[in-house]
């Protein structure tokens, strides 16, 4: 019986502090009030235990004392919320984690919340089935098993990077999975109305976040320049350091002052011979937008092989010549794109004409076939 007992709220044991409080009250209760009497000698015939003594002598066994101690113990028992686990009990606990990039700022809170809740639920059933389910579309980085330690190990690897997305599909998947005696806990920093049966734990809080919001690279006077937009998303003015990293080396640190909600524009140019740089802001709680890589844009060049003869081939050749950055390949090894024509004509019942794309370093059987109407 005791093996199956656990306390849902161990913090309730703090109420045991009521015991010394009760004892202290009984120690110090009722300071002796003077009482004028006719004579003392009739009292002095009583036992000396009633005389003034040490502090312990003042603590006397009395019904109020024992009743108050009993009340404290009863209160502790109630606050501990004792539970008995049935032998065949089973519980599905599903944690649905908001995969939004903003959750990166609250990763520690999320992990500690899951840790706390999982510890709390670990003893609530004989078999506890854990499930970790991020809300992003692929649903990866999840866990499904009975080991809480493994659950936490997977959670420690969790990295939210998604943009704005809908949480409902993940929550519906969780609701379908949780079963009759399951728990579905959604941990998010968004104000989101969840479906019935979902418990929400909010981990978000207002942050003083400054981050890169956009960039532009352009050529001017023969020099590649860059412009980066930085915004203060917080409610107060901030002063933030920023710098440029070139080949992993940090450049001079500059300081940027932004009022609440204000955006600032940083400009600069690529040094001679440098194709890529990285912008960096001093770290804040949301780290994802603190770095911004920049590269000088390069036009893509596609090598095309036209294996089509006749009028179609001529058409494709003329079309190819009209497209910039596309040139005809001479050999199959250097081909990025091959055009083929099905021998079955253009009718729907026949094989359609095809444009076959071929990855540069992949064998020809890795192709994507798209129907093209000419």
């Amino acid at each position, binding site marked *: 019986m005791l093996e199956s007992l656990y306390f849902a709220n161990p913090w309730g044991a703090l109420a045991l502090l009521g015991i010394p409080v009760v004892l202290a009250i009984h120690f110090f209760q009722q300071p*002796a009030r003077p*009482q004028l*009497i006719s*004579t*003392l000698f*009739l009292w002095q015939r*009583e036992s000396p235990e009633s005389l003034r003594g040490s502090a312990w002598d003042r603590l006397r066994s009395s019904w109020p004392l024992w009743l108050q101690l009993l009340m404290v113990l009863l209160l502790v028992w109630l606050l501990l919320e004792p539970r008995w686990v049935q032998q065949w009990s089973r519980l599905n606990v599903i944690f649905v984690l908001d995969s939004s990039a903003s959750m990166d700022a609250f990763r520690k809170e999320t992990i500690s919340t899951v840790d706390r809740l999982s510890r709390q639920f670990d003893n609530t059933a004989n078999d506890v089935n854990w499930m970790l389910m991020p809300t992003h579309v692929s649903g990866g980085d999840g866990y499904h098993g009975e080991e809480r330690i493994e659950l936490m190990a997977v959670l420690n690897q969790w990295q939210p990077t998604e943009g704005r997305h809908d949480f409902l599909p993940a929550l519906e998947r969780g609701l379908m999975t949780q079963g009759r005696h399951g728990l579905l806990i959604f941990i998010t920093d968004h104000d989101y109305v969840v479906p019935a049966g979902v418990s929400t734990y909010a981990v978000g809080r207002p942050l003083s976040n400054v981050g890169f919001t956009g960039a532009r690279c352009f050529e001017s006077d023969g020099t590649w320049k860059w412009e980066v937009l930085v915004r203060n998303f917080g409610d107060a003015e901030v002063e933030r350091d920023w710098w440029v990293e070139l080949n992993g080396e940090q450049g001079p640190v500059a300081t940027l002052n932004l009022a609440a909600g204000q955006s600032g524009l940083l400009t600069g140019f690529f040094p001679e011979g440098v194709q890529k740089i990285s912008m960096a802001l001093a770290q804040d709680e949301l780290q994802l937008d603190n770095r911004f890589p920049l590269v000088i844009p390069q036009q893509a060049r596609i090598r095309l092989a036209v294996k089509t003869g006749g009028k179609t081939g001529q058409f494709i050749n003329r079309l190819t010549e009209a497209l910039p950055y596309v040139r005809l390949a001479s050999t199959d090894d250097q081909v990025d794109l091959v055009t083929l024509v099905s021998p079955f004509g253009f009718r729907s019942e026949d094989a359609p004409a095809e444009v076959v794309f071929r990855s540069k370093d992949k064998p020809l059987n890795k192709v994507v076939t798209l129907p093209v109407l000419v």
Partner: protein
Amino acid sequence: MNDRVAQCRERSRESLSLLRLPFRSQTWQGGQGVWQGKGTGSAIDFRDHRVYVPGDDPRHINWQAYARTGHYSMKVFEEEVQPQIDIVLDCSASMGLTQEKADRTVELLYFCCEQAWEAGAILRLYHLKSGEVILQDPAELLAGSWQPEWQGDHEGDFHFSRLSFSPNGMRIFISDLLFEMDANPLLSSLTAVGGKGILFVPYLAEEVSPAWSGNLELVDCESGEKRKQRVTDALSQNYRRNYQNHFQWWKDRARQFGCHLARVGADGQLVTALRDDALAVGAVEMAV
């Protein structure tokens, strides 16, 4: 006169119509007075004849009877005596612990004094203060100029034997008896030389059964001695038992010496309080 004392005196007078000191039960002897004695005396009322004994006063020889019979015979007349009452008032602080107890004590004092004055008795009043017995002039009580002073304690023994109590008189001791001492010398003094000892013991209900409880600092009103005491129900019960034993012991001792010990509660009217115990033990008797 102090209003409070005057009120006490008035209340004691009211009780005189119903109760009085036990004069009837006493064989009075002593000086010339207005009360008829049990012995022979020099009053003009003739009582009897008796045979002359050498040493008799020749003035009372019945010469007519001698002429007839040739034998000396004596005329015996009634004796008229004057009662003698000695009152010792305990003036310790405990007697004035509360106004009720102080009032009842004064009422008892006047109850006794008024009867003494009414009976034309020789009244001697003593105040007991801090173990010392001080002779007090009863005229101050009569004139209403007396002011009670409740102070001091019962240090030392009461040496009543040093007092010159009137022989064959009534000796009244008004005290709450809340002290530890050997009762025998006191009671012996009250009953010595034909004396009739009466003890009036005023008491408070809270002395009989204290209503207070908890952590107390008990302060002796006489000595000022303090005692930290947690008063529980059990302790109060023990105190009540000690209290009853104490007074039972006093009553037993008083009975042995032929004294009347009457406890007089401070609550209610004096007549009612006297009727409760004093009438039963013979400390007072009905006035009719």
